[in-house]
């Protein structure tokens, strides 16, 4: 199955969505963007809740534009589940099921056997979302749309349901559009990631590419690249350009830099720190010395801001607790920051 959107457009008063071109095969496309960027509009158009002003949408070759919701064979899991409150969990699933056996097998698959006779109001958030998922799957849709199904859940339940979704998606052979504003969920579940901004798609690609090779400052910031600097390309041999950020000179592996004014992006997770005496000049990484300006305990990792000795830039990175403790990090600790050459990404400046 393939879902193909082409030149899709929709205006609501001040807000313009599109034109959007997008092809989704039997894969999970995670749609990530800030609130109000048009994520839900995209789903509404595909589901048939909103009518596009222009463009076409083809699912498995069928044109969806003009088709009423009920004839699209597009399943949608709504944000809070949208369960029918006057029906039990079983009745909700039966409402959609084409045959009776399906209810039983879906209930087993989604671990709902114990709650089938309960009304939605008495279910927990995670149970509600699982019932909503079972109800949608009961129709055997040709495409599946999910609108932030995990956003209202507590962390441990969210993680667990996310893992269940991961397994479920692997067993589905249909296009899945998964809308979220949470970067971790998007990268974990998406085979590809689409970053949405102001009604348009800013970048599409595999999660690791989008994270490490953002095409704009917006994508960089939204996918967690906190180290974004203005830089100047000073040298551009074929082995990789050299870029200056303030007084810091960084070697990169980028060989095709069109401009000399660039935005330098370094994802915090790509940077490692070590004690100054551990530094090894021969490694193919940029080593910068600095001191810890601030640290924050984020639970499973520490976030540290390092003020570089040369120049006025501050690098942010995250450090696992064992490293944090081994280096005895504290405000003022001197350390060496390693920035691998290939982790430095350059975006040409347009201004």
């Amino acid at each position, binding site marked *: 199955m393939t879902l193909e959107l082409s030149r899709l457009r929709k205006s609501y008063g001040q807000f313009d969505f599109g034109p959007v071109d997008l092809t989704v095969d039997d894969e999970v496309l995670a749609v990530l963007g800030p609130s109000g960027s048009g994520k839900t509009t995209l789903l509404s158009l595909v589901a048939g809740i909103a009518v596009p002003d222009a463009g076409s949408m083809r699912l498995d070759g069928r044109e969806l534009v003009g088709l009423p919701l*009920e*004839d699209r*064979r597009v*399943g949608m899991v709504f944000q809070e589940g*949208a369960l029918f409150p006057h029906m039990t969990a079983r009745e909700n699933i039966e409402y959609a099921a084409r045959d009776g056996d399906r209810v039983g097998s879906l209930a087993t698959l989604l671990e709902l056997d114990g709650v089938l006779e309960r009304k939605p109001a008495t279910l927990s958030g995670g149970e509600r979302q699982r019932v909503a998922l079972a109800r*949608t799957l009961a129709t055997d849709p040709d495409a599946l749309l999910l609108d932030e199904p995990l956003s209202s859940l507590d962390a441990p339940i969210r993680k667990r349901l996310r893992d269940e979704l991961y397994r479920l998606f692997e067993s589905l052979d249909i296009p899945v559009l998964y809308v979220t504003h949470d970067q971790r969920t998007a990268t974990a579940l998406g085979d590809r990631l689409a970053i949405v901004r102001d009604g348009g798609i800013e970048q599409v690609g595999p999660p690791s590419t989008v994270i490490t090779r953002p095409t704009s400052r917006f994508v960089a910031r939204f996918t967690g690249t906190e180290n974004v600097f203005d830089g100047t390309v000073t040298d551009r041999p074929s082995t990789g350009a050299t870029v200056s950020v303030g007084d810091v000179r960084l070697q990169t592996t980028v060989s095709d830099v069109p401009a000399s004014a660039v935005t330098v992006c370094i994802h915090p997770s790509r940077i490692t720190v070590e004690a100054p005496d551990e530094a090894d000049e021969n490694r193919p990484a940029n080593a910068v010395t600095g001191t810890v300006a601030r640290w924050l305990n984020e639970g499973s990792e520490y976030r540290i801001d390092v003020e570089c000795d040369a120049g006025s830039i501050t690098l942010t990175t995250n450090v696992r607790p064992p490293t944090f403790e081994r280096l005895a990090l504290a405000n003022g600790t001197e350390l060496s920051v390693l920035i691998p050459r290939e982790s430095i990404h350059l975006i040409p400046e347009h201004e």
Partner: protein
Amino acid sequence: VGFDWLSVALVLGGVLLLYYVVPLVSLFLSVPAGDILAQITNPTVVDAATTSLLSASVSTVIATLFGLPLAYWLARTDGAVMKGVLAVVILPLVLPPTVGGIVLLTVFGPGSPLGEAAVAAGFPLTRSLAGVVLAQTFVASPFVVVTAKAAFESVDQTLEYASRSLGEGRLTTARRVTLPLAGPGILAGVTLAFARAIGEFGATMMMAYYPRTMPVQIWVAFIELGLDNAYPVAILLVGIAVAALAVLN
């Protein structure tokens, strides 16, 4: 200072409540129970009750049948057209009932072409049960529309989208999702319309002084025979109002 204002507010509210309750209690204190039972079986009272219940039932059915689709449309539409239509629906609500009677007479009265034709066909639209129904429907049906509109609005439209995305059409969605969920609100609107219809006086006096409905009968009894003779019908109507109230809660 805060305490004083709170007390003043409580006293004001309490006085208003007393103003509602005391006259009702007083009515029941004014009449010996035995008398009432005897008078309630009086043929005049029975006739009026029959006319009222029949006409109010018919008016309510008409109001519901014609009003629900309009209410649903109002609930699911936005913009200037909706506002205009809503204003038209509210107008009969803020229009004095006697004026309602007058405007209906200009269309259905014996002097109008429609009224003349109806009389010629042996089905007069004034001074007849039809006239009562026309008057009650004009005055009572907006209650169904306005209340059912609110009831439909309280049903999250996402639920309707969910139903349809599960492959069910508009009709099944309305029958199995929207109507069951809006049910209590719709029932409230139907009840209000019935209560308004059975209490209708001003427009009915204009359109159909005969056959006498209960409110008209109260007036006639009061004018012709004095206050005491209006009690039996009044007590019947209080009973119906209390029953309506029970449905509303």
